[in-house]
């Protein structure tokens, strides 16, 4: 995310504090993709991700007075979204101690029974380990920078760029060539 976008989000949050009913829509449009795919990287389920995204935004609106627009409201929103996703998974499979002592990778093992992701994403998920899949989704679909991902998953940027590059190598070797030819026809 560049500084221009950052400033736009700060401006939108300042407006949001003044009048949530009018200013929420532009703020939502600026941020929804990041929030949605962050939650999806945990839950692997589109419908559940939408519900959790709604909960995250409602929490954000409830705490609006406490958040400083001078700092980084998006960071607060993403942390809220991440916590909502982890809470959801914790309720689904309480036997795993999630996101503690570096066990966050375990989250990926708690796939919901129904996977309604597209066939290409499903194939990618099969080729990458849960952590690689999360980094890949956050970077490509969530359009988050490695620095932003680093603050969310608590890993150094160097580790993330290495993981991402390894993921691309794995996909190059493993993804069915048919996908690539299909994309040429499109």
């Amino acid at each position: 995310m560049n500084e221009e976008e950052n400033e736009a989000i700060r401006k939108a949050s300042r407006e949001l504090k003044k009048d949530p009913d009018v200013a929420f829509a532009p703020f939502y449009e600026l941020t929804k993709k990041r929030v949605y795919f962050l939650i999806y990287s945990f839950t692997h389920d589109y419908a559940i991700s939408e519900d959790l995204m709604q909960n995250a935004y409602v929490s954000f609106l409830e705490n609006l007075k406490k958040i400083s627009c001078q700092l980084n409201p998006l960071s607060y929103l993403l942390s809220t979204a991440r916590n909502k996703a982890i809470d959801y998974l914790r309720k689904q499979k309480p036997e795993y101690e999630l996101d503690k002592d570096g066990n966050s990778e375990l989250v990926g093992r708690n796939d919901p029974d129904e996977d309604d992701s597209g066939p290409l994403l499903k194939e990618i998920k099969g080729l990458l380990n849960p952590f690689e899949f999360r980094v890949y989704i956050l970077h490509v679909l969530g359009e988050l920078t490695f620095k932003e991902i680093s603050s969310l998953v608590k890993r150094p940027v160097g580790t993330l760029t290495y993981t991402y590059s390894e993921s691309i190598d794995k996909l190059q070797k493993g993804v069915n060539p048919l996908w690539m030819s299909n994309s040429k026809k499109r």
Partner: protein
Amino acid sequence: MDEQFEKKINKDVQASAHPITKNAADILSAYHEKEQKKKPSSYKAPFYGALGALACAVVALAVLLPTTIKKQTEGTSSLTEDYSLSDVEVSPLKNDQDVLGYELTTLYPLVKPLSTKGRLAAYSGAGLSLFEEAVAAYEPLQAPIRSTFLGKGEVLGVESGGYSGSYGTYSNKMVLPDVGELFFNAVSSRGRWSVLTGELAADGEVRRFEGAQRSTDASKSIFGLKLFGSDEGDYSIVEQKENQGRFAFTFQLYDSYQLTSSLNLRLMRANGKYPFILVNAFSSAAYETTTFKVLAVETNLYSLYTSKVSKISLSYENSQRIYKNNGSTITK
């Protein structure tokens, strides 16, 4: 990494991704619905209820207060009946008398609740007994507290800390969840902390830090280690304080500019020795600050005092921790 392939597959993935169907209006209406539920239907019922409760409380106080005052004057306090502080011989710091000075009358309030929210959370923790609650709150803290008592050479689990040398060198190693392993070293010279260095190891990478003087007051020496730049959103600060005869170690972890957890250990001195520790631990998950006073009776026997439970005895036996209070026992 093949850049053309990367661009192509990323484009395909973006094209195949599910569109976001939820719109802003749905979320706003969910928010307003929740806000409506929060508003009380009428102010009259809670107002008169509170007025009634207040009247009952005044009557109860008028009856109970004289009785309680009478009882207190007859008995002795729990601090004096069980032990004498001068009998305790457990701390490795007992020879460092000149480094830190301490007066018993300035004792930090032992059971001071640090926030109203914390107190509310404590009362709303139904389901667990007060003893169980106190043990659950103390369990994550027991390792650093015990290692602070035992000093250098004792490593318990993931954390260790202690003094060495005649100038009072303090070293500490701890694992910060989701961050890495932190080691730092502070040296006291002529009664003031003068050097602070640290390292943070995570995923095979080691970052080194030097402490910076944080206080402008020459009578104090406060050092801080800044681990992350505030522009990254997350940062931790470690402080060493030697102020008015009190040694304190504080660790605070922030996430998105909000304090998520903090630990404050104060090693207290009495009669030239360091027999007890005051600890404040804040957790954002429970929104509560827990305060303990921990007295080392022997190397493997400690007494814990909190606001909730009168006295808990903790003994370390055969790699087990046995908590006892009024005939109840919890083993960990």
